[in-house]
C-alpha cells in the first residue's frame, strides 16, 4: 500500500481542475515575486493558518 504523491509544480497546480481558485490565485501572484521572499511568506502564512485551524477546531 504505497500511495506516492509527488509534490506538483506550479504549472500542474494551475492546470488541476480540483485545485482551489484561492491556491491558483496565490500561485500566480507569487510568480512575479522573489522566490525566497515568496516561500518565506508562504511558510508564515501556512503557520498562521495552522494556528487558526487549531484554535477554531480546538485541536491540541
Amino acid at each position: 500500500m504505497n500511495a506516492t504523491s509527488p509534490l506538483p509544480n506550479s504549472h500542474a497546480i494551475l492546470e488541476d481542475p480540483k485545485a482551489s481558485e484561492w491556491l491558483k490565485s496565490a500561485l500566480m501572484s507569487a510568480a512575479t515575486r522573489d522566490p525566497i521572499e515568496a516561500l518565506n511568506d508562504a511558510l508564515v502564512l501556512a503557520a498562521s493558518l495552522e494556528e487558526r485551524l487549531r484554535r477554531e477546531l480546538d485541536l491540541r
Partner: protein
Amino acid sequence: MSKDSDKAAAGGIDSIASQSPRFATRQIRPRRGGSLLVGRLTDHGRANYQFRADENASYYVKLLTSRGAKTLWGKDLERALSSGETRPSVGDLIGARRAGREAVTVTARRRAADGRIVTEEAHYAHRTRWIVEKVQFFAERARLARRLRDEQADVRETVRAHPELKSSFLSVRAAQDFAARRIADPRDRERFLSLMREAMAASIHRGEPLPAVRLRDPLRKEEVLTIKPRSPRLDDPTR
C-alpha cells in the same frame, strides 16, 4: 553470521522498526498522548526504517506540515491508517498523534551461515501506538469532549445527539454512585468527580477510543438518561 533481530527505531520515535511473529504483546501501557501533528498526507507505505537497506521493515507516513515535510516511522502507523475511523488517503489533511506505548518482547536471534540459530535472546522493547485520522475527526472529538465537560448539559439531549457518548456518561454516573457511597466529604467528592470527568474528556479529546462500558444488568434507556447536573451555585460563572 547474520543477525536476525528486531531493533527499536531511533530518531525520537520510540517505535519498533520491524514486526515479526516473534513479537509477543505483553500489555498496553497507557501514557499521556503526544501533541497532535497536523499536515497534508503526501505518502505512506512499507519500507525499511529510514529507507536504509540494512534496517528492519517498518512503515512510514509522509506529511507536508506548515513547518515543512515530515516523515513518521513506526510499524503501528499501518494499523492506525488502515483501521482508523476516517481512513485518510493521500491529499487529506490529517492529524497524527502518539497514543501510548505497547510493551513487546523481541527475540534477537543470531544465525550461522547455514541458517542455524546459534543464540536466542529475549529483549523488552516498546512500540508506539498511533492515532492517525482526518483532521475533522479530532475536531469532532474536541466537540464531544466539551459536551462531556459541560456539567450543565442536558444529558438526555446530549446522548441523543451523540450516542457514542453514552458509555462515557454511564462511566460518569458510575463514578457518581461510587463517590456518593464511598467519599464522605462533599468537596472531596466533587473534586474526585471533576478529575474523573476531566480525565475522560481529555482522553476523548486526544482521539483515543471511546469507552465501551458493559453493564452487568443493562439499564433501561430512561435510567441511562437520568444523570442530573449538579445544582447551580452562587459562585458559578454566568452562562
